[in-house]
């Protein structure tokens, strides 16, 4: 358990160092995620080991963004000015992305001949 948490933190740390050392636009934890995925693919035994800890961390993922979410109260000015525009952009772009993603999937699945 402690070993697994240490491992996850080490991958995050390595990601943060790589992101800064090479001035990458990608956040450090995302690099850590990609590196850990690569490590799992190379050593499936590692995946079996770390999986329960990873699942434990992710079981209440939505709790983790409550503190940042509450911070929206400090942007009352931005929301007063741009709130309606942001909401319109969210609704329209989410609908467009859903339709575009699903239609592309169906079209390519038909071409490739893969069935559900």
């Amino acid at each position, binding site marked *: 358990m402690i070993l697994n948490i240490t491992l996850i*933190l080490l991958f*995050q740390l390595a990601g943060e160092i790589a992101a800064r050392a090479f001035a990458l*636009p*990608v*956040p*450090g*934890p*995302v690099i850590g*995620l*990609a590196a*850990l*995925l690569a490590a799992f*693919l190379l050593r499936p035994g590692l*995946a079996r080991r770390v*999986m329960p*800890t*990873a*699942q434990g*961390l992710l079981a*209440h*993922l*939505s*709790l*983790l*963004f*409550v*503190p*940042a*979410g*509450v*911070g*929206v*109260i*400090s*942007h009352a000015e931005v929301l007063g000015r*741009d709130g*309606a*525009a*942001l909401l319109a*952009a*969210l*609704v*329209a*772009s*989410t*609908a*467009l*992305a*859903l339709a*575009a*993603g*699903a239609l*592309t*999937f*169906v079209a*390519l*699945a038909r071409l*490739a001949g*893969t069935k*559900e």
Partner: protein
Amino acid sequence: MTDLPDIWSYLREGPLLWLTATLVAYLAGDAAFRAVDRNPLVNPVLVAMIILGLALWSTGTPYATYFEGAQFVHFMLGPATVALAGPLYENLHHLRRTLVPMLGALVVGSAVAVISALWIARALGVRGATLASLAPKSTTAPVAIGISEALGGLTTLTAALVILTGIIGAVLVTPLMNALGIRDWRARGFAVGVAAHGIGTARAFQVNRTAGAFAGVGMGLNALLTALLAPYVLTLFR
């Protein structure tokens, strides 16, 4: 017996009060979500945000004071992002079988999400840091907050936009897919994972197991792609 104001002035100095309040508010939100049969409109994070927002406002507590306590929860976003490698690895066999449709839908869905949001918001007068905060809104919150930070956005605004996107996607997906006549559960799930991250994925699992598994893969892959894509798309709208 100590006076109530004395106890209050002691508590507001330390992290214990607002850390506990964050967990209590989240549990209340989760209970509310279960009470309405997991209707996506009653999102537990949104409920918790409203409860805590009201608590801060009514006690005149600044957000910085709140965050001193809540930062212990916030810190876990980084390790949780790394841990997303777990479910992504577990579902990778889906990717091997349907590689082409998935990668195509990933690139199209992810690009449409970022470009259309920035284009609409910019046309309606949104500029600068607010626009940067919007770019990663379809990505899972821990990754989106990291991307927003790297782009010079307002991370707390991004968190709220991400949650709203998830709720909108979860509410829209079923009626929209039915209207479009899309019956393939893999396509429906994958699209909602790409467009509406974890909240969309949770909704997909409620509707269909296959849709849920594909949504999880879509969410994980989009976290990687948006991190690469958003900085370049944003420069087009600056």
